[in-house]
């Protein structure tokens, strides 16, 4: 068994957003298995709070308290605010617009996929998410 030592900053920090408990646990495990630090949020509002995007939250270039996020992976269909709307908010933010956003969905709807990609989503993944999908993402992250 080989042990790799990472500096705090070397391990990508991913924010995973999904309202489904099982999917959240699965994505978290997939990301951890791929050597990522993971924070989960159960809906877009919580994600926005975490990212400092809610109105009246102070936006600073460090994004506060070590909450630097290297990637956001979010479900599309969520109650309240959808993953697409969250994507929009992220892309509108001066601080966060360059953070890659990945959208997950159980529904293979070409219009939806195009909409997300055009809005600047890094990738669209069809659920259920597999280890191969996450490994691909992880390889991309190391290039950043």
């Amino acid at each position, binding site marked *: 068994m080989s042990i790799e030592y990472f500096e705090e900053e070397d391990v990508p920090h991913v924010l995973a957003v999904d309202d*489904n*408990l*099982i*999917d959240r*646990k*699965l994505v978290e*495990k*997939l990301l951890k*298995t791929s050597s990522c630090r993971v924070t989960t949020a159960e809906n877009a509002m919580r994600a926005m709070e975490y990212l400092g995007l809610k109105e009246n939250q102070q936006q600073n270039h460090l994004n506060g308290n070590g909450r630097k996020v290297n990637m956001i992976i979010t479900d599309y*269909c969520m*109650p309240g605010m959808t993953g697409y709307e969250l994507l929009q908010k992220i892309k509108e933010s001066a601080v966060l617009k360059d953070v890659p956003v990945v959208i997950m969905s*159980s529904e293979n709807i070409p219009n939806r996929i195009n909409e997300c990609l055009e809005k600047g989503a890094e990738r669209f993944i069809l*659920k*259920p*998410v*597999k*280890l191969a999908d996450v490994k691909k993402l992880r390889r991309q992250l190391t290039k950043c």
Partner: protein
Amino acid sequence: MASVPQLQRQFIEYTTSLHNEGYLDDQFSQLQKLQDESNPDFVVEVVSLYFEDSEKLLNNLATALQQKSVDYKQVDSHVHQFKGSSSSIGAQRVASVCVHFRNFCEEKNLEGCLRCLQQVKQEYILVRNKLEALFGLEQQILQAGGSIPMME
């Protein structure tokens, strides 16, 4: 008391049959691949969450369909959740029934929905029983000092 090799053979045969009969699909194998020394109970943990969640969803569905004026959007939302989590753990047959169920929701077809509720409940109970039997076999193997065969 069966020997470890006998138990392991049973495990392999049972897992294979569950896949062949469509109860479980490749996604379940994905879960098994994620289990390792640092997280030896991962599959049981996720599946236990699935059982808890599913039972809540089934109750919510029954309640929603009993309303005088059924809110089909709400019913569809529950089915969507159920389909999602079932797919994520590889419970293929449950997920398939959910697809039909959603169609009936769209049509606001109460009879169709009620039939699907019965069906999805049945499929869920079946897969739950089978997974519990599978976990039971695993326990027997481990207690007899053996290791769980890796399924390709």
